[in-house]
């Protein structure tokens, strides 16, 4: 009823292959973008922007990165946290070597460093797959964590081993460091996320994405129809790590404002993997849903019981939070193993045929 594509005729191949072929979807997207770019920065509280929206967007970006690798190419990776760390540390080193170059350039450049490291640790993927590959990427995770912790060069010989984000400006407005306002940082993150999501969407809908999906569905068959496995898998690793690297740099430069190596430990990798699986493997929209659920759920769990006037001990809250997350993960998997993205699709289909579901 509300959502019907009747009368929307496609008259060209380009129109037929559009990412959002249905008019209502395009309106929906426009509304989402409008809310994200105008409503939230204008009316949102500082808490909403700083504690929810910025990290949500950054984690979504990382989840998209991992989804390109795990969801689209079928290569399970547990090294996401470390690749994000590479991005963050590369950006930090670059901006301390060349402080005059714009920070946005360095954030993008740090993605390339991360991509190079990703390719290096992706090399075993040609011979191994599945859980074996997951362990191989754990090697990346633990090795890189150790490197950031033990080699003081990475933190510019800071005694505490932590990195501090310096203040950098764009057109005279500080966008990183302590003096940058929430709204400015939010806009920078938003632009990064929108542009990179758009690029990712084009990648997965094009030739590259089809190659990735062919490899995911059966790499031997993909090999036989002429897809070069080595290049395709490494490209997936490089792209995925690029996204994760940029997300890592954004995480430190535009959210935390400083970081120690422990931030990029194996738990971060698992955290991003949760987002991807709960959101839906092989779905970009799902990455956003997953990030929203996994990131925002703990916040809700933490802030709601006191609001409702239930007196609970903070430690107890944390324990219950763990239990609730565990139960929810299992429940979600049982209800819809294909993730929130699939639920979203089912919901859209229901809307389409409502009120006559046949």
């Amino acid at each position, binding site marked *: 009823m509300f959502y019907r594509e009747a009368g929307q005729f496609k008259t060209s191949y380009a129109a037929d292959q559009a990412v959002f072929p249905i008019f209502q979807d395009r309106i929906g997207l426009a509304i989402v973008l409008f809310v994200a770019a105008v409503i939230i920065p204008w009316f949102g509280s500082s808490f909403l922007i700083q504690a929810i929206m910025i990290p949500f967007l950054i984690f979504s970006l990382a989840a998209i990165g991992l989804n390109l690798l*795990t969801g689209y190419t079928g290569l*399970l990776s547990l090294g996401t946290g470390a690749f994000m760390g590479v991005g963050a540390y590369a950006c930090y080193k670059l901006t301390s070597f060349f402080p005059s170059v714009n920070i946005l350039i360095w954030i993008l450049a740090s993605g390339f460093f991360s991509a190079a490291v990703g390719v290096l640790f992706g090399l*075993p993927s040609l*011979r*191994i797959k*599945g*859980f*074996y590959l*997951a*362990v*191989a990427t*754990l*090697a990346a995770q*633990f*090795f890189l*964590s*150790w490197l950031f*912790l*033990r*080699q003081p060069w990475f933190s510019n010989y800071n005694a505490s081993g932590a990195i501090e984000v310096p203040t950098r400006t764009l057109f005279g407005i500080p966008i990183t460091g302590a003096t940058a306002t929430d709204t400015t940082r939010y806009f920078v993150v938003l632009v990064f996320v929108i542009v990179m999501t758009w690029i990712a969407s084009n990648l997965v809908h094009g030739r590259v994405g089809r190659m990735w999906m062919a490899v995911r569905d*059966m790499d*031997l*068959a993909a090999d*036989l129809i002429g897809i070069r496995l080595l290049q395709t898998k490494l490209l997936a690793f490089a792209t995925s790590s690029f996204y994760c690297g940029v997300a890592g740099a954004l995480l430190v430069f535009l959210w935390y404002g400083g970081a120690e190596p422990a931030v990029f430990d*194996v738990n971060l990798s*698992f955290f991003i*993997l*949760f987002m991807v*699986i*709960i959101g839906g*493997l092989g779905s970009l929209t799902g990455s956003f849903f997953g990030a929203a659920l996994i990131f925002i759920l703990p916040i809700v769990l933490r802030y709601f019981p006191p609001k409702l006037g239930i007196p609970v001990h903070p*430690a*107890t809250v*944390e*324990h*219950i*939070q*763990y*239990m*609730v*997350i*565990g*139960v*929810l*993960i*299992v429940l979600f*998997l*049982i209800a819809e*193993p294909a993730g929130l993205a699939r639920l979203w699709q089912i919901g859209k289909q229901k809307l389409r045929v409502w009120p006559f579901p046949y």
Partner: protein
Amino acid sequence: MDLLYKIFIDPFVQMGAAPDLLVQTLWEGLVAGVLYSLIALGFVLIFKASGVFNFAQGIMVVFSALTLVGLHEHGVPAYVALVLTIGVMFCLAFAVERLILRPLINQPDIILFMATFGLTYFLIGFGELIFGGETKVMIADQLLLPRGAIEVKMAGGFVSLQKIDIAAAIIASLMVATLAIFFQRTRIGRALRAVADSHRAALSVGISLEQIWVIVWFAAGLVALTTGIMWGARSDVSFALEVIALKALPVLILGGLTSIPGAIVGGLIIGIGEKIGEFYWGPLLGSGIETWLAYVIALIFLLFRPQGLFGERIIERI
């Protein structure tokens, strides 16, 4: 040149100069290896029978140890607590089968893997909620585990062997032997092996998958409890063990995901390799290489033998 000397010659010179230190390091590695083997054993049991990569094995170790200590703290005698803990592990196996495995039957591996993450989180929260998050001391004395060390004169010096480590090695070997006999000689053991070979074929000859899964998760729970007691007696019972449990992953890779002997041998190799590497080559790189050395060993190994030492050969067909 100097660096090459330091990498390739100096460590061996050190080993030759102080053989007692080498033996001590080997022993430490062996002991760590036994514990890795035990954790890996739990993984392999479950992976073989249900194809689930059970991430929760590490937390099951902590949870069982916590239950044991927690029950004892509430005034239950040590051996009664042990029996009760075994009961708890059975209930856990039963609940996992009913609430997680059965609804998720026929789902892709990664979904089941993810579900064990859910289980991990639940057990962390549940364990901390009931028994508290602080570090506890294992009730080693009450369980009549030996304490203290033996000094053995060996290789021109003294090597100190902790009695608890010797006990751990003996108990671990006993458990592996029991499991091997159980697998080879009993009816249930045969059914387990059948399920490991092929779920569908096993179903068609009338083996109940549900029953087998409960049994196998229970067996993994018992392995976890043993690991928890041994580990707890050496250090303390705390959630830090969870990270150490991740070390079982390279062990599995090295041994092959489906092989019990592989888990044991892999554990020992990783344990010894790690300690030797840390002791002799660690100072070169700045210490702490223990955290990643195991993974890198496994990674290099994988490049040459993707199915692991004893794993079944991976044959792919279209």
